[in-house]
C-alpha cells in the first residue's frame, strides 16, 4: 500500500489537467494559454470558454464526483462489488420522473428538475427495498432485483418518449444522459452536492467497519440498521441529483469505486475521495470525447461512459470469478 495520500494528490492533478484539456478542446481548438487568458479576463461575451465549456466542465466534475461517491457508498453497504446506483434502479427512477415531468409540464422551471429527479430516484430505491423485505439478504438477489426494476422503469421511460414526440436532444438526454446545452443555470442545480460531500465522507468510518462483516461491525459499535439507511439515502440523493442535471449516465457509479480501490485500497477515508475524483475524471473525459470526436455533432456522454465502462465491468467480472 504505497502512499495513498500521494495518489490522491496525483488524481487531483490529473483531474485539473483533464479539465484544462476539456476547456481547450471542441469545435474550435484553443491553446491552454488562450484558455487561461480568457478565464482571467472573464468576458461575459466570451462564448467558448465562459459560457459553454466552463459551466459544462464544472457540471461534469460535480456530477461525476456525485456518481462516484454514491457508487462507493452503495458498494460499501451492500458489500457486493457488482452493485451500483444504476443497477439498483435509482438512476432509472430518476430518469423516468424527469421524463414524466418534461412531457407533462414542458414549461417547468429547471430549478425543479433536481427535486423531481430525487423523488424518482427515491421511488426506485423504495421499490427495491420493498421487493427485498421479508427475505434474507442476498447480495446477488439484491443486484438482480435492482436490474429488473431498472429495466421496468427504463422501458416505461422509453415508451413515454417514443409516444410523445420530443425534441430529439432532450429525448436523448432523458434516455442516455448527456451534457448537451448544460450552462450556468444548471451549475446552480448541482451546488447542493457540496453540502452532501461532508455527509458522505462521514460514512467513511462506518463503511470500514461494515466491510469487516455484520458481526464484527456490530461488535465494534456500529449501529448497523441506522447506518445502512442513512448511507443508502445519501447515495440515492447523490445519484438523483446527478441524474437531475445530466440525465441517466451509467457506469460511473459502478466503475469509479473499483478503480479507486485498486489505486488507494479499501480504507474509506481514502477510497471515498478517490472514487469522487475518478468519477469526475471519467465524466470530464467522456464529455470531452463526446464533443470532439465528431465535431460539430455530439455523442452523448452516456454513450461514451457505457463504451468505456462496460468492458471494464466485464473485465472485473472475469477477475471476480468464483
Amino acid at each position, binding site marked *: 500500500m504505497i502512499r495513498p495520500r500521494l495518489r490522491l494528490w496525483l488524481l487531483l492533478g490529473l483531474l485539473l489537467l483533464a479539465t484544462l484539456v476539456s476547456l481547450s478542446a471542441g469545435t474550435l481548438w484553443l491553446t491552454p494559454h488562450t484558455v487561461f487568458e480568457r478565464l482571467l479576463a472573464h468576458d461575459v461575451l466570451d462564448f467558448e470558454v465562459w459560457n459553454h465549456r466552463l459551466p459544462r466542465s464544472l457540471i461534469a466534475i460535480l456530477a461525476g464526483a456525485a456518481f462516484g461517491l454514491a457508487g462507493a457508498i452503495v458498494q460499501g453497504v451492500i458489500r457486493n462489488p457488482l452493485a451500483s446506483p444504476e443497477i439498483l434502479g435509482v438512476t432509472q427512477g430518476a430518469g423516468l420522473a424527469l421524463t414524466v415531468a418534461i412531457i407533462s409540464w414542458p414549461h417547468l422551471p429547471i430549478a425543479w428538475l433536481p427535486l423531481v429527479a430525487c423523488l424518482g430516484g427515491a421511488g426506485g430505491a423504495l421499490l427495491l427495498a420493498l421487493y427485498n423485505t421479508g427475505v434474507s439478504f442476498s447480495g446477488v438477489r439484491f443486484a*438482480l432485483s435492482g436490474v429488473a426494476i431498472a*429495466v421496468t422503469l427504463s422501458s416505461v421511460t422509453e415508451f413515454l418518449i*417514443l409516444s410523445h414526440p420530443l425534441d430529439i436532444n432532450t429525448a436523448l438526454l432523458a434516455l442516455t444522459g448527456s451534457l448537451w446545452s448544460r450552462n450556468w443555470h444548471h451549475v446552480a442545480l448541482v451546488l447542493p452536492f457540496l453540502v452532501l460531500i461532508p455527509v458522505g465522507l462521514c460514512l467513511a468510518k462506518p463503511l470500514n467497519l461494515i466491510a469487516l462483516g455484520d458481526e464484527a461491525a456490530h461488535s465494534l459499535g456500529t449501529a448497523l440498521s441506522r447506518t445502512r439507511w442513512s448511507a443508502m439515502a445519501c447515495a440515492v440523493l447523490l445519484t438523483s441529483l446527478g441524474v437531475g442535471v445530466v440525465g441517466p449516465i451509467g457506469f460511473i457509479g459502478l466503475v469509479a469505486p473499483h478503480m479507486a480501490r485498486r489505486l488507494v485500497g479499501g480504507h474509506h477515508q481514502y477510497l471515498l475521495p478517490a472514487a469522487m475524483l475518478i468519477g469526475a475524471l471519467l465524466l470530464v473525459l467522456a464529455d470531452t470525447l463526446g464533443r470532439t470526436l465528431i465535431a460539430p455533432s455530439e455523442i452523448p456522454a*452516456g454513450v461514451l461512459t457505457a*463504451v468505456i465502462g462496460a468492458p471494464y465491468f466485464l473485465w472485473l467480472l472475469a477477475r471476480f470469478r468464483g
Partner: protein
Amino acid sequence: MQRSFAAVGILLSGAGLFWLSLYSWSPFTLTATDAWNGLVHQGRVGGNMAYIVAQLRVPRAVCAALVGACLGLAGALMQGITRNRLASPSLFGVTAGAALGLALFSTGLVAPPFAGGALLMTCLGGALAWFTVFSLGGAWSPTTAQGRLVLAGVAVAALCAALTRLTVILVEAQAQSVLNWLAGSLANVGAAQVQLLWPCTLIGGLWALWCAPRLNLINLGEDAARSLGVGIASLRLQVFVASLLLVGASVCAVGPIGFVGLIAPNILRQFLGNDYRWLIPLSATLGAVIVLGADLLSRAVAFPVETPAGVVTALIGAPFFLFLARRAL
C-alpha cells in the same frame, strides 16, 4: 392430461390472436370479411380492404408469430443448456449483440455485400455477445451463482446498446433513428421478412426439438449427463448455433424484442415441469402468442400512434422477471 390442455389452449389463443390482428385497430376500417378475403384469397377477392389485409396484415401477423416462436425456442434452449431459469436472449445480451450487428450492417460500416449479409451480421453480433457473457459470467462453472450470468448479460447488453447508438450517431448524425433502432417493432414488415424468417424458424425449431432429450439429461447435472452418454461439448455447440440462428433471424426481421424467451418457458414450466420434449415446441407456440398479443397491444395502447412491440414486451416482461427473480434465487 394437463399438457394436452395447455397445448390446445395455447394453440387456440394463438389462432384467435392471429385472426384478431388481421383486422383490428387499423387506421382504415377493416372488417372480418376483409380479413377472411385477405387471408384466404390473398386479396384477389373483396376489394381494396382485403388487399390491404393481404399485403400488410397477413405478413405482419405471420412475422409476429414466427418471431415469437424463434424467441421462445431460443429462450428454452438457453435455459436448458445453462440450467438457469433466468437465461434468455435479451437478458444475456445476445439480442443486443445481434442488434449491434444489424446496426453495423445497415449503416454500411461492416456490410458483407452478399445476400444474407444482414443475417450473418446479426448472428455474428449475437455470437460475440454470447461468448463474452458466457465465458465471463462463468456459465460452465458449477459453483457460479445464478445471478452472475444475468449481471454479465446486462452489462454486455448495455455496452451493445451504447455501441449501437454510437454507430448510428456516427454514420447518420441523425439521432432520431437512434431511438427507434433499439425498440424492436413490427410496423414495417412485409413478405421479405416472412421469407427470411420461416426457414430459420423451421430449421431452428427442428434442431431444438432434436436436442430436447439431451437437454433433459443435462438437467440432472453435467457429470450425470456425461455418464449417461451425452456429448456435452457437442450439445453446447449445437444449442449455440441453433439459438444464434433463431435470435439472429428475429432481430434481422424486426429488431430487438426482449423478454419473450424469458417468459414463455417459465410460464410453461409451471404446468409442464422440466421436460424439454414438451417445453420446446410449446415455448415456440406460447412465444408466438405473446408476440402476437404484444403487437395487438402495441397498436391498441396509444391508438392511432403505434408503440413498438419491443416496448410492450418489456413492460410486461420486466415485472414478470422481478417476480421470477424473487423465487428463483
